[in-house]
């Protein structure tokens, strides 16, 4: 069941929420819509569900046009950010709702509904909770009820809006891997919205990175992480150090240091920025090559097993962040104020003009 989104546009007043979005979601995939708030990701999800009207463009599902189909005819399971469970109904009635509202000839018998609900409760690991009210459940349990409720109608696709946004860090991690396993079991085409890059990288088959109502990049987690298509994607997917310089014939010239940029052998004297992740920087005590940048150690702190070193560049007022593991840190034995050289192991160069509209 492929979801095909073509040339979809949406305005809120004069604000352009989505600009000419086209996207294909293959059958059975778990896709993340990732982006900062205001990027249009939730709007796009709500449009697929039919909760938001489409101004221009079409959304079709397995070849049949959904654009003018009402929400309750679309066969989607929607999981809301704050669960949206029916407060006055028990867990059982919440899950059975979608089956109970069916037209009489399509409605399963009472017995069948009961079997189905208990099956789903089993699936979301809430077997003993059928008679509880939503207020009597924890956040993670409510989210699982919401998921079971959406799955009860056997939807063609499952849409989840920031499914773990309102949960605390530990529960979020648990539910995340559980969702991944669940998706492998039931294999329904799923789209979820998130602003958490770690969540997207961890769970999704494919990630759609959005910014300002446009798609920046589509790809598998490793594709987008290792080969970001734009400075925005690079920046959004993790911490990054920027090295501004002049790009000329495959070299990025920073003044005191010169970095290799083999992708741009025929570039002629352009302003460019080198993007380097903190764990792609080496720290050395001596300047061994032209690509070593002189810095002074400014701040050292540990986050769990990782060490973060903040360094101030000697040639400018900018700071560089380096991530070391425990062994590297122990071996270097840095002290604050000491002058050392940082050398990029991997770098991606972007020429700003290409991305300014």
């Amino acid at each position, binding site marked *: 069941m492929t979801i095909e989104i073509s040339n979809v546009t949406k305005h809120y007043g004069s604000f352009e929420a989505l600009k000419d979005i086209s996207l294909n979601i293959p059958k059975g995939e778990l896709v993340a819509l990732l982006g900062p708030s205001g990027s249009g990701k939730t709007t796009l999800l709500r449009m697929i*569900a*039919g*909760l938001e009207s489409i101004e221009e463009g079409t959304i079709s599902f397995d070849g049949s046009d959904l654009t003018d189909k009402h*929400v*309750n*005819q*679309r066969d*989607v*399971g*929607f999981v*809301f950010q*704050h669960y*949206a*469970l*029916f*407060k*006055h109904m028990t867990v059982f009635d919440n899950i059975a*709702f*979608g089956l109970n*509202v*069916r037209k009489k000839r399509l409605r399963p018998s009472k017995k069948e509904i009961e079997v189905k609900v208990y099956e789903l409760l089993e699936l979301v690991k809430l077997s003993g909770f059928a008679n509880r*009210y939503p*207020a009597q459940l924890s956040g993670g349990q409510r989210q699982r009820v919401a998921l079971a*409720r*959406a799955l*009860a*109608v056997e939807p063609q696709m499952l849409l989840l809006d920031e499914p773990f946004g309102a949960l605390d860090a530990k529960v979020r991690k648990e539910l995340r891997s559980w969702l991944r396993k669940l998706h492998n079991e039931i294999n329904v085409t799923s789209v979820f919205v998130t602003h958490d890059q770690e969540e997207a990288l961890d769970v999704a088959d494919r990630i759609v990175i959005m910014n300002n109502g446009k798609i920046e990049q589509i790809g598998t987690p490793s594709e987008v992480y290792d080969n970001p298509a734009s400075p925005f994607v690079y920046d959004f997917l993790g911490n990054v150090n920027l090295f501004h310089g002049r790009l000329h014939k495959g070299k990025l010239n920073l003044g005191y240091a010169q970095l290799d940029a083999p992708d741009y052998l025929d570039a002629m004297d352009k302003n460019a920025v080198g993007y380097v992740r903190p764990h792609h920087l080496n720290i050395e005590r001596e300047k061994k090559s032209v690509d070593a940048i002189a810095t002074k150690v400014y701040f050292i702190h540990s986050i769990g097993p990782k060490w973060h070193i903040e360094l101030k560049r000697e040639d400018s007022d900018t700071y560089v962040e380096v991530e070391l593991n425990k062994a590297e840190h122990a071996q270097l034995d840095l002290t604050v104020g000491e002058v050392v050289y940082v050398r990029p192991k991997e770098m991606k160069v972007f020429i700003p003009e290409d991305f300014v509209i």
Partner: protein
Amino acid sequence: MATDLVKNEGKHIHKPTAVKKETNWTKRILITVMFLYLSIFLLVPLVYIFVKAFEQGSGVYFAAITNSDALDAIKLTLLVTLITVPLNTVFGIAAAWLITRFQFKGKQLLLSLIELPFAVSPVIAGLVLVLFFGPRGVMGPLFSEFGIKILFSTPGIVIATMFVTLPFVARELIPVMQAQGKAEEEAAISLGASGWQMFVRVTLPNIKWGLLYGMILCNARAIGEFGAVSVISGRIRGMTNTMPLHVEILYNEYQFSAAFAVASLMSLLAILTLTIKAWIEWRAEKQLTA
């Protein structure tokens, strides 16, 4: 060091008790003032109504409320209430739905219009309706062509009462529905519910206490409305007299006991309304904490 500690401890024990005593006194004084105030302005008059009503014995009392004019007034009041409350309930739900679930221009204006009857004196409202539906008014000739009499008859009283009680249900529901948000309704729709199923199964259970509360207030006002109805009804005995109008007529005719008897009946209705209201609040609170 040791002396310091003792000193501090002393202060520590002393201070909170002083504060506590002060709040206790404030509380006591306020409670006394409130009770005195409410007794003088509410309780004593209420008791006085019943004392006056039974002054000439229960025979006169029951004669006053079973008198045919009185019975007609009671019937008319109940009829008007039975028409107005459901109509304004439907209107209130529709208005609250529109305001809380849709974005449109002029929303603020609509909100102000809904509250207009609170701001306008009922007598003026009555006068406007008289001019509007009168023989020289905009709508009067049209209706009289079809043989429908609005002025000095039941339809006029119903219209006047509807005007005055229009805001009650909507005003109770708007904040409730605003707080509720539309996520649950969207969830119901996405699960395949029709608009009506969503309303009955999800919206209504969520707003039922607010709705009942608004209906109770609307009901109380519909029974007690005097100003607007007095202007438009023409006060024809046995025909267009509602309970409050009947009380005034009896009073003006120096039939004090009879006037107070009918007034006591209205007071009983008010007390009943208050009791139901208190019960609804108690239930709603219980459900919130459950």
